[in-house]
């Protein structure tokens, strides 16, 4: 099958690389964001004209992240934290305000037309709502054929196209393919539709998949099926996947690395297990304390009041650390100075003043409320 040739070639080279050691090397990074910032300007009102102000929504500020081949990176945050904007920026759907996106080590600015198409061939986006992302008047065959043709992978002739279509559907476990090819989106269930959307993205044979809340619109009993499929694809095709979610438990389950975003900035990052079991940033701790957890029934009475307040306005974000108005451990410094990344043991890092100097002493995260609670139970 022609469609599988590049896949095999790539898998082969990647296996040798993984075989040489688990430590990721710089060459594994497929897509990288460096200091990416996006401000959406607001419409100017008369008052702004008088005040000579140009107000804007600070949707994403100084976000740096690396997507590596064969790994899933989760970006966790509340709605309005800017996590979807990051996906759109990485997909080159919006121009950046500042910063840089590098694909395979080269800085890229995909404009429109040809250069954009060249970019999306390597970086594909999956949307949240499979009910809206497929055209209701077209069949599965149409959606997939179009993706294959646009990206020049349809092959020559009818039979080759048929083979490629079948291969795509097999890859997302919609089998037998003949049963699904001529169906319209409304004839499929939510999970099947999302699988078609994934197949369409794979039609470009990309290196990077940006999945923006890929399962949150699906029924709970089929969410894991789709996540497991994505993980399987990651392993077989050595894709770099960005998994955007509000559900930190699913990030722990599915992602290798987890980044936590709050009010347009990434506040913590590291190995998923490390971030969820030993959250360092007070916001991550709040997020984990708030997540539904059936094990908590016993201890509900003694549980302290989890945080109050709401995310700040992104038009006039708070000075210093953006979490300080809600932070139980805010210090004077937090109100004025923006915390940089502080490195913690085991590759974890947090943008929080609590850890100023922590890396030097090699101390554990000091404010580990969740762990304390676990221990006292």
């Amino acid at each position, binding site marked *: 099958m022609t469609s599988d040739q590049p896949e095999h070639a790539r898998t082969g080279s990647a296996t040798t690389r993984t075989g040489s050691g688990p430590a990721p090397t710089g060459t594994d990074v497929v897509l990288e964001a460096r200091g990416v910032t996006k401000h959406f300007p607001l419409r100017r009102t008369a008052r702004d004209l008088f005040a000579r102000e140009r107000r804007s929504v600070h949707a994403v500020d100084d976000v740096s992240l690396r997507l590596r081949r064969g790994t899933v990176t989760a970006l966790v945050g*509340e*709605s309005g934290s800017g996590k979807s904007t990051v996906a759109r920026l990485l997909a080159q759907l919006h121009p950046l305000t500042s910063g840089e996106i590098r694909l395979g080590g080269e800085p890229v600015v995909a404009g429109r037309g040809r250069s954009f198409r060249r970019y999306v061939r390597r970086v594909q986006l999956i949307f949240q709502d499979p009910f809206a992302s497929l055209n209701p008047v077209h069949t599965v065959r149409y959606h997939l054929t179009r993706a294959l043709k646009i990206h020049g992978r349809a092959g020559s002739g009818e039979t080759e196209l048929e083979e490629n279509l079948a291969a795509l559907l097999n890859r997302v476990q919609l089998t037998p393919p003949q049963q699904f090819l001529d169906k319209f989106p409304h004839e499929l*269930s*939510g*999970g*099947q539709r999302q699988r078609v959307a994934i197949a369409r993205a794979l039609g470009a044979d990309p290196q990077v998949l940006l999945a923006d809340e890929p399962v949150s619109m699906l*029924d*709970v*009993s*089929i*969410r*894991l*099926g789709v996540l*497991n499929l994505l993980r399987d694809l990651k392993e077989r095709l050595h894709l770099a996947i960005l998994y955007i979610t*509000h*559900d*930190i*438990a*699913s990030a*722990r*389950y*599915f992602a290798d690395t987890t980044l936590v975003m709050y009010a347009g900035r990434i506040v913590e990052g590291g190995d998923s*297990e490390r971030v*969820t*079991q030993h959250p360092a940033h007070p916001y991550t701790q*709040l*997020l*984990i*304390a*708030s*997540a*539904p*957890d*059936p*094990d*908590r*029934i016993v201890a*509900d009475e003694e549980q302290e*009041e*989890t*945080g*109050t307040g*709401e995310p700040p306005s992104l038009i006039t974000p708070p000075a210093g650390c953006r979490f300080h108005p809600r932070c139980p451990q805010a210090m004077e410094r937090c109100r004025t100075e923006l915390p940089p990344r502080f490195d913690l043991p085991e590759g974890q890092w947090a943008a929080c003043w609590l850890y100023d100097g922590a890396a030097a002493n090699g101390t554990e995260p000091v404010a580990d409320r969740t762990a304390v609670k*676990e221990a006292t139970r």
Partner: protein
Amino acid sequence: MSAEPVLTISGLNVDYGTDAGAVHALRDIDLTLHRGEVLGLAGESGSGKSTLAYAVTRLLSPPGVITGGGVHYHRPGGDHVDILSLAPRQLRAFRWQELSIVFQGAMNSLNPVHTVHSQLTDVLAAHRPELKKRQRTDRAKELLELVGISADRLAAYPHQLSGGMRQRVMIAMALALEPEIVIMDEPTTALDVVMQRQILRRLVQLREQLNFSVVFITHDISLLIEFSDRIAIMYGGRIVEQAGAAEIYRDPRHPYSDGLLHSFPALHGPRRELTGIPGSPPHLSAMPTGCAFHPRCGKAFAPCAGQIPLLAPPADGPGRAVACHLHA
């Protein structure tokens, strides 16, 4: 908590459509809500959980029809009301006064062109005409403070409030007349986890203060286990299992309950490979014969395809009920 019932649903059937093409949205629902308890109702889309909320409040709009069964409300004094046979006027008095509902996507249920004040006092003006304007405003302030919003936001329009605040205003409205029962249909699905927990904790506190009963409908079973006393799990228009929250969590009997519990990755403890449930929920118009879950069930055996299992207590577990041939 007393075991005195406040709402009993017996053999409730609801169809959409009346002719031969009618689909059965609810089948033989038996459910009892006790005074002061939080009853969780879990299920996926199409399982009939919202239809149940609408049927109980008689808000079901055509083509939905209640084709059988009864819904009885028990007043604290002891007399009981047959909700399905209330005349329109009695029904109007009954709703909100004794049973109120917070709708799915409630944040968008507020009227955008009216202030919070006018929407909160509107219900008081309709149900408590004896109150003076001043008293109504005072009550509205009281209600806002009850749900943790400062009283000076009374003059705000819905768009000036955040999603979480709007949701809390909706809860304040539902509590305005101190009803005995509050039905919450996915009250926090549109909110972030931090806000969700704040609102639910508030609700639990209020429940203790005001002693109302709650029917809490959601698809998030891990949330239900934490916040409700008893849980009923629905699948394909039927209740498939009903038990105390801790019992469901520790020892689910129905394979569907078990699958649902294993569809949520855990935040703590060992990382396990989870599979979810194969297949997808059935469509109401193409309901499998026998047990609706059997095509997706790993434990299905001979009788499952032909015979509908009845909801009954399992041999070894009184106080709970399960509809599965494995436990018959």
